[in-house]
């Protein structure tokens, strides 16, 4: 009997997700939320010793994969630093969205860049976008990149 969750209904896709993460981001650990959604938690350090280490959580929507929204069916939250606190401290942040709980997550990609058909956007791909996001935002926070960061799509 097919399960309720996408990872039960589509074990092949789930296995390919796990393989991609093991290959490209082996420090990320798979976890399950109370509502049944699964997620990966781990760290990225896009600027090496010149930047911070960010603890990220990539959460799959229940109906993964889809491209109905910006970022598709994968949401990349920053656990540390907290984007809500960073937003308050900086007065703003570029390329962010709010979930139904009011929490900020990274707006990593446009709808048209998300794959949801035969080729689906993986958590590894979302983390590749997240690395670019952090690189740009850390540059903006350091004053190396101007406010054009809000308009530029990178």
């Amino acid at each position: 009997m097919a399960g309720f969750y996408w990872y039960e209904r589509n074990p092949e896709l789930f296995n390919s997700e796990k393989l991609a993460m093991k290959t490209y981001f082996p420090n990320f650990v798979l976890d399950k939320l109370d509502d049944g959604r699964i997620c990966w938690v781990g760290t990225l350090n896009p600027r090496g010793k010149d930047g911070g280490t960010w603890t990220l959580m990539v959460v799959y929507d229940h109906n993964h994969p889809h491209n109905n929204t910006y970022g598709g069916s994968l949401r990349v939250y920053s656990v540390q630093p907290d984007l809500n606190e960073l937003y308050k401290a900086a007065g703003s942040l570029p390329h962010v969205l709010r979930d139904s709980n009011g929490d900020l997550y990274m707006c990593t990609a446009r709808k048209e860049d998300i794959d949801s058909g035969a080729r689906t956007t993986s958590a590894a791909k979302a983390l590749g976008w997240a690395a670019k996001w952090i690189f740009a935002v850390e540059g903006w926070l350091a004053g190396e990149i101007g406010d054009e960061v809000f308009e530029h799509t990178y």
Partner: protein
Amino acid sequence: MEKKIFVPFGRMRSDDAAAAKRRELAERLKRGEDVSVTSSGQVVAPDDPIAENGKTLKAPEGKLA
């Protein structure tokens, strides 16, 4: 006799080199050129030795929204 050592500007300042590398990567991103992401999440140019020696993900095409 007074001894003087000539140090080319910037040669002793590793911060400059790091800033130059960041500018180069920022420009690559701005121009939409390829960058790679290492397993630690570091963004590097595809021809960077770090990228060539290890398993890296080519940062996906597409734009931040």
